[in-house]
């Protein structure tokens, strides 16, 4: 079973990379892109076939390693 983990900077944290990307898009003429936040994306291949177990395991590794709770939050999707 596959879990997808999306890690993003918390709203209170300034993202200098996202800002630079947004400015680049503006200079390319995409003024309609108001803001950009850059994040990280992980695909975890898990041994379990139970969605609940997969989600719990993905959350555990996200808490322990994939995300730093001081600056980041995460969201998990389970692929069935």
């Amino acid at each position, binding site marked *: 079973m596959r879990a997808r983990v999306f890690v993003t900077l918390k709203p209170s*944290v300034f993202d200098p990379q996202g800002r630079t990307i947004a400015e680049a898009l503006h200079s390319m003429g995409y003024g309609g892109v108001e803001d950009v936040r850059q994040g990280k994306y992980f695909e975890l291949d898990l041994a379990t076939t139970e969605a609940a177990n997969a989600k719990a395991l993905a959350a555990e590794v996200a808490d322990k390693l994939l995300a730093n709770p001081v600056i980041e939050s995460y969201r998990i999707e389970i692929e069935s």
Partner: protein
Amino acid sequence: MKFAVVTFPGSNCDQDAYHAAKDVLGQQAEYIWHKDTDLKGADVVILPGGFAHGDYLRCGAMARFSPVMKSVQEFAAKGGPVLGICNGFQVLLEAGLLPGAMLRNVSLKFQCEHVNIRVEQTDTPFTGACRVGQVLSIPIAHGEGNYFAEPDVIARLEANRQIVFRYSTADGRVIDEANVNGSLENIAGLCNEQRNVVGLMPHPERACESILGSADGLVMFESVMKAVAHA
């Protein structure tokens, strides 16, 4: 006295720290491989600069799980002086030995230059030989030294006098123009509440001999030698 210099795969300032302790100050020094757990009776532990574990994922994120870190945590919990320099500071943040986290420099550049930092606190083992307001010229070399913590954490750091160094001008003014990387409150270095664990982004070990452009970092090593001698 004996300095332990931890070497992670990807550390690259371990030899500078070892050289400062052993050759410049004439003290004992030992490298400790990150998979070892014996600190070999060291009086001081240094987590050096570099790119531990390639800095993959986040700076210091994987280094905190290296076996040696359990021993460093225990050493720190007993009041042993621990200094994290640059990547070593990032490891201390990830390990929760110091609060907060590092973001990309606002310039988005890897910055390698001499900067001025003002000593804010002298009751730590690494600043005891400094005076409050003393300005040190010390090099930085980092891409992610933009210190961040939530406002309540910053308030607590101020209240507990845990901000040990701030980026400043050469005459000691802490202003935006001197803030090299965007750090909140110009924070260049911190200590924990017990004050025995200190982390900073600038590299004092690279500023211990005038031939290197500055010997201002030496005072931090002299400080800890005095602190250990009087402990």
